[in-house]
């Protein structure tokens, strides 16, 4: 035993290991844009979690004069109802990120499950799934989601349901493609030879091998989900009014920012800027993750 231990130690000493933090630092140094994306998302996550402490006022209180321009008291000014725009943008992060994260998690989990089963078993089930997916993807996602939300009625919960459904076809198609090539590998054959069942092979052997792909996809889809939520809310079929939503704050009554007479440009600028920066963060991070984890996917995702 003692001899074995020294042998092991000797081996470890022989190949000096780079500490993890240094590896990470090197990775970060090589991907400055990815770091920028990660920083944007971390800041936003912080703002969303601690919105009550970050925002100086309540997002729904109408205690101020309407259309006060940006100033020390109101960083982003006040809106047509006398609400503090900065506080609304801060609380909007909570809704935007919340809707995005929840719907993408549900949608990509369901899509991945369908994709793995469909790709693993193949045959008639797979064919049916693929044709259905193609037809759904041929239909404009926004119009489909508008129809779904109009059936279910606008509420945060229904927006989450609609976006989750909208995410599934894309995820299942890409995951299925990866599973098709993954199941050719010898480790699958080996597992089967050892007596593993289909469920075991899918969950323990194939899933870990396509997990990186799913994570990349989910990151890129988060940007998409936030854009779709903003679009639905802008069309007033998304997050319903008293809630602070970036998309909704740019539409409807809030469109009084045109210059006859108020010209409150700040109402148009800041919520839109918040959407753009958030989506940019997820796109930058998703792109970088893809390049690091699986460069072959470049351009395909």
């Amino acid at each position: 035993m003692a001899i074995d231990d020294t042998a092991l130690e000797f081996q470890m000493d022989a190949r000096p290991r780079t500490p993890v933090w240094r590896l990470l630092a090197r990775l970060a140094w090589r991907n400055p844009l990815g770091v920028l994306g990660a920083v944007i998302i971390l800041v936003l996550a912080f703002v969303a979690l601690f919105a009550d402490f970050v925002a100086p006022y309540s997002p729904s209180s109408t205690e101020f004069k309407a259309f006060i321009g940006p100033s020390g008291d109101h960083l982003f000014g006040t809106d047509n109802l006398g609400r503090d725009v900065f506080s609304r943008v801060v609380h909007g992060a909570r809704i935007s990120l919340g809707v995005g994260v929840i719907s993408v998690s549900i949608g990509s989990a369901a899509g991945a499950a369908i994709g793995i089963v469909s790709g693993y078993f193949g045959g008639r089930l797979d064919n049916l799934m693929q044709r259905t997916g193609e037809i759904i993807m041929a239909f404009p996602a926004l119009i489909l989601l508008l129809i779904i939300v109009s059936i279910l009625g606008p509420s945060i919960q229904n927006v989450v349901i609609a976006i989750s459904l909208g995410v599934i076809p894309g995820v299942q198609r890409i995951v299925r493609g990866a599973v098709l090539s993954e199941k050719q590998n010898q480790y699958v054959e080996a597992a089967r030879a050892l007596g593993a069942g289909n469920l075991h092979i899918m969950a323990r052997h194939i899933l870990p091998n396509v997990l990186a792909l799913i994570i990349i996809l989910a990151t890129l889809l988060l940007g998409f989900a936030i854009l779709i939520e903003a679009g639905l809310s802008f069309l007033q079929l998304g997050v319903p009014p008293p809630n602070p939503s970036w998309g909704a704050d740019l539409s409807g009554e809030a469109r009084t920012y045109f210059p006859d007479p108020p010209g409150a440009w700040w109402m148009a600028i800041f919520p839109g800027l918040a959407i753009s920066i958030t989506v940019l963060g997820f796109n930058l991070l998703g792109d970088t993750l893809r390049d690091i984890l699986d460069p072959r996917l470049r351009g395909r995702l």
Partner: protein
Amino acid sequence: MQTYILRRVLNLIPVLFLISLGVFVLLRLVPADLAEIHAGLYGTEQDIEQLREQFGLDKPMLVTLAWPWEGEFAWPWEGKFWHTQYFEWLGSALQGDLGESAFPNKPQGVTAELLDRLPVTAELLILTLIFTIAFGIPIGIISAVWQNSPVDYLMRGGSILGLSVPAFWLATLVILIPSLIWSYAPPLGYVAFFDDPWANLRQFVPPALILSAGSAAVVMRLARSSLLEVLRNDYIRTARAKGLRERTVLFRHALKNSLIPVLTILSLQVATLLGGTVIIELVFDLRGIGLLTFLAILQRDYPVVQGVALYIAFIFVIVNLTVDIAYAWLDPRIRYG
């Protein structure tokens, strides 16, 4: 080539059928009764019943659900079997009649309404596609040729930005900023291209440019990575080795092959753009099909939404055919495959 095109057309028919069926079923989940809407506030039970009969809403939705020994039952070879809401709608739709709007104050039939608004959306879509191709592909090529140069970084950065900025916000800014600085407002009311091309383009170019930002970014990224992948092939090395000019290698040997995946993504982008017209037409107040779709969904005017779904399926078929023919042109193997 002709057999190839014919085969593709035949393949697309089930898709058309399934899209119309899917939307029909989805819309009947909407809790709104056409007859009740038409009968108005003071309609009696009898009026509603009569209207229901008039619109065919008393018929089964899709198929007759009955056992063979029951009176309702019919076999597919009997005419009665096809007297359901879906098949009657499909039958008259094939003859060019999409029915009437759920709102009695709109005298026009759905077909006329769609045809009325088609020029606006068609022009917007065509201009957007032209901009998407005109910006996406050349920028993608430039970015790939000067890979990892400052130009490449600038263009890739620009494309990520294009993917991240929502079209409705961009549109809002494009209207808002000139109005703040020069008190300029875009002209309202539709001007047909052949009446006054200049006024027409002034109306359509800004929304088309905004709508193309996202899709041009997608096309650019794919054109870049696809060209880079093609340039790594052995035949490219051979072409260079035998002393061909870089320009010849690029345009004669690499470009066509690299455009195949770009075409695929372009055809998928059309669906996204159709969704985009809803938002852009709303912001720019263009009376096209996008705006019609939005209002119809909002008012649960499902005869109109069904018509729109058929129009979307139709565009899908046209786009797919064009893309298939373009594939065959780009890659002779497909023609003879």
